[in-house]
């Protein structure tokens, strides 16, 4: 059994908060568009587009856990560290929009909520954590991968916290907030372990052969064709 992805459907959070989330996420996407343009010029569309396909395809790979269950990557931290925070935010956002519009995965009115949880909380926050840790950790492969691991791990409960905040503000269910927070963060603290391991293994694989493609390792603009 493969665990499905948790994209908020329509009606789970009330309309007011859903629309508010749509507006806030639009601002983030606008900022990300400007940032990505600075970083990649006219290469944004093909590179962020193909990165979005990569994240989408990566989510299709089943990682077996035990007893027939398997999980898959969420990919926020992976996207940010591989292609940079802005292109990463755009790639994850585009995956979410296409999933909602084409695959009915995640509500149309809940797109803003899902973008806030996955692109902002999981991708952008993962990048900020990664950069902070990168400064503190030794400047070698171990330090780099440790920063990657912690950022990827935290990205998962962070997106659960995003969900809980949305639920607290506009939840339609009569349930104690502490129960939701406990369950969400508890479950995601475990899922985060898988996310961290897979992200580190994947980035380490790319580092070994094409270090120049890992944005987090360049500390400057992505250099192409080297």
């Amino acid at each position, binding site marked *: 059994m493969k665990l499905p992805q948790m994209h908020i459907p329509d009606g*789970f959070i009330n309309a007011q908060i859903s629309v508010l989330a749509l507006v806030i996420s639009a601002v983030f996407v606008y900022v990300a568009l400007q940032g990505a343009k600075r970083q990649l010029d006219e290469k944004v569309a093909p590179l962020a*587009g193909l990165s979005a*396909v990569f994240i989408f395809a990566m989510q299709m790979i089943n990682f*077996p856990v035990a007893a027939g269950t398997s999980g898959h990557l969420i990919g926020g931290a992976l996207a940010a560290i591989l292609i940079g925070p802005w292109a990463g935010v755009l790639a994850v956002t585009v995956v979410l929009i296409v999933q909602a519009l084409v695959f009915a995965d995640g509500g149309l009115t809940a797109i803003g909520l899902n973008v806030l949880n996955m692109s902002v909380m999981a991708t952008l926050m993962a990048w900020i954590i990664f950069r902070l840790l990168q400064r503190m950790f030794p400047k070698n492969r171990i330090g780099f991968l440790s920063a990657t691991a912690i950022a990827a791990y935290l990205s998962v409960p962070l997106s659960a916290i995003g969900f809980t905040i949305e639920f607290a503000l506009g939840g339609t269910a*009569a349930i104690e907030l502490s129960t939701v927070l406990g369950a969400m963060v508890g479950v995601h603290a475990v899922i985060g372990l898988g996310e961290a391991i897979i992200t580190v293994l994947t980035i380490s694989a*790319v580092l070994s*052969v094409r270090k120049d493609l890992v944005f987090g390792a360049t500390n400057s603009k992505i250099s192409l064709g080297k």
Partner: protein
Amino acid sequence: MKDSQHHLIDGSHQHNLTKFYTIPAHIKIASVFIFVLLVVLTPGKNFQAHLSFAVIVLAMLIWNRIPLSLIRKRLIIEIPFVLFAFFLPILGTGPRIDFFGLKLSEAGLWAGWNILVKATIGVMMSLLLSTTTPQRELLVGLEKLKFPKLLVQIMSFMIRYTVVVTEEVKRMAIARESRCFEAKGPKQWAVLARSGGALFIRSYERGERVHMAMLSRGYTGQLPLTSIQISSRQDFINGTLLPLAALVVILFWSVFLK
């Protein structure tokens, strides 16, 4: 999801298209979005209104001949939230009522119903939109709805290359299996992740190649418009029918219930 991707991506639709198929995409997207938003705005306790919404949605699905197998497949996405909805009456707060011999939270029951009915209607409306609109037209529609051009371009690349890259994922899986690899547990994650890393490099390099090819054809950051959809007054009127139906339902039941 995997099996239906091709069907959706090459936009192979049925032959006898209904009128709904011909509504320009931007009107259709807005129409479906406003309909779902109105459904979400209607309190779950307005039981009759939601049943009426469900009837409208089902009628739309039947009228447009959306295959039942596809509806079933899409509804699977809801499962985690359905489980949550079922737990609500047990975990919920507030006074308890007797429900077939079980002591359940009344507020929890309503909340569970609220989530279930709205999520289901939402999934079915998204399905209606995606099966009656070719993906290329969805993109044109989003652009007409003033989505940032660059975001639409990124989406168009994603949609165009999804089949190519997912086929690559399958080929990699076959290659692994032909080397007697079998993913049994976390011990094999490193191998899978290396495939993921290779996939990233291939995708990124494909992006670079695509970019070069585009430059050689004179790309300057703008994609040329390939189709111009002219929307008539009639299309606009047709587009207002769905939200209008939802409004009528809401007004009718709020007057009737008083």
